[in-house]
């Protein structure tokens, strides 16, 4: 059974610059950043996540919303296992695919086809899976003969198409997204929506951080609201978006 459980997860970043002592005094209680305090050893520590607990399972699409600095990216990285919590734990059943940088590892001098293999490598695809999916990736990207050319000859739109085609060929158990793929390229997204929806429907669990309430509404069935590292809401998407709105107003 695919599931993900966060249990009192705390993530604390120590700040090692000596001058941070006075930084603490001026910056404490600043807007929406993680709360800052001195711990027992007189080190300044930023509490990026404070006692985060929730659980999601097969079929859940969880949105993470909150102001800048609330801890969305930190939470995603912690769920991915990149940061081990300083306290508490994350328990996961299922393979986690963090897709934070859709083009991570791409080699400008390698051809489109070679980059398909490279990205597949970083996405933990086996050799067989990559070879199997390469044709349909190539077809969807509509790059044709360009796939035999180094990607430094591509326009940025072409690179996005390739990266997107590769990413959406995955069959992840648990997919973690930090902001929507291809954010800002509205025309491309419209064309790619069907593929995206197919991709997301193949995903057993989706966790998505976004600033766009629209995207959260479209993609998610549950949401959590983060504020200064604390989980202040875990509910249906509509309820949490309402809570966020009232938080902004107050």
């Amino acid at each position, binding site marked *: 059974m695919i599931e993900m459980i966060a249990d009192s997860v705390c993530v604390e970043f120590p700040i090692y610059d000596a001058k941070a002592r006075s930084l603490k005094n001026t910056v404490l209680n600043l807007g929406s950043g993680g709360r800052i305090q001195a711990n027992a050893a007189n080190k300044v520590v930023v509490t990026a996540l404070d006692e985060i607990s929730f659980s999601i399972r097969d079929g859940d699409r969880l949105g993470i919303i909150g102001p800048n600095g609330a801890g969305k990216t930190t939470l995603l990285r912690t769920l991915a*296992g990149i940061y081990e919590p300083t*306290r508490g*734990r994350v328990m996961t059943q299922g393979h986690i695919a963090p897709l*934070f940088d859709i083009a991570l590892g791409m080699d400008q001098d390698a051809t489109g086809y070679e980059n398909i293999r490279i990205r597949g*490598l970083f996405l933990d695809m086996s050799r067989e899976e990559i070879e199997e999916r390469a044709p349909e990736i190539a077809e969807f990207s509509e790059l044709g003969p360009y796939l035999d050319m180094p990607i430094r000859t591509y326009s940025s739109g072409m690179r996005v198409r390739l990266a997107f085609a590769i990413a959406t060929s995955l069959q992840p158990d648990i997919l973690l997204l930090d902001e929507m793929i291809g954010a800002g390229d509205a025309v491309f997204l419209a064309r790619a929506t069907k593929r995206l929806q197919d991709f997301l429907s193949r995903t057993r669990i989706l966790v998505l951080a976004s600033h766009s309430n629209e995207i959260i509404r479209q993609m998610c069935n549950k949401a959590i609201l983060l504020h200064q590292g604390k989980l202040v809401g875990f509910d249906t998407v509509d309820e949490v978006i309402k809570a966020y709105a009232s938080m902004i107003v107050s």
Partner: protein
Amino acid sequence: MQAAETTLSVSVTGPSNGLQALHGALTDLRGGLSDWRVWTFLAHHDIRARYRRSTLGPLWLTLSMAIQISAMGVVWATLFNMEIRTFIPYLSLGMLIWSFITSVVGEGSLCFVSSAGYITQTKRPLTTYVFQLVFKNLLIAGHTFLVYLVTAIVFQITPTPAMLLAVPGVVLFVLALAWAPLFLGPIGARFRDIPQVIQSILMVVFFITPVMWKPDMLGERALIAILNPLTHLVAIVRLPLLGEAPSTLNWTVALLTAAVGWTLAIGSFVRVRTRIPYWV
């Protein structure tokens, strides 16, 4: 119950006690070794990126080493009063071995910092980046080895059975150094001036290591060379390739360096492994 599932990975991350920490470190090491497809790619990529679209590509490594050897070879042979015939092969091996050492140790302290992008965006074993650095330097050494081969042919070094010892020699040499990035990497991530300190130390160590000169040239002061573990690491690679057998002392010190080094590296890795992504 779960007939449809092939393999289900269960991961629990969170603060660990001593035994869990050890298990975590060993799992990371095992994972790093099996991640060879990624680190061989990254190592190739590093080298290609450096020589992108240049005329000779990575052969520049070979060429620049050849130029260095030619220039230094003639001058230093005269200064040391040695025959060019024996000195140039000796020097070319010394330089290629020293490059390996200096890169694995010097860049070793930066191996996590320079991969910060990968470390914070994907979940991979951290030892992947250690193996990447070691493999990259093996590739570079492969390119510069050509220079030695040419000198060996030109100066007619006769093959002897002792040359077979080069195989275990190289293996032990790599083992005796591969722990350095694992040990120094976290330190370099936590204290950002350490890489500079290490570079400075390496510059000094160069002068007390018989790279360009022979240990017996020190006469009464030979102890300086003998106490330096790098002397022995260099010897187990260089001597066989020149047709001689390394001494028992050479092998012993190399083995000890490997044993102590890895114990140190794994011991510290157990403690700091989970902090590294926070530090980079």
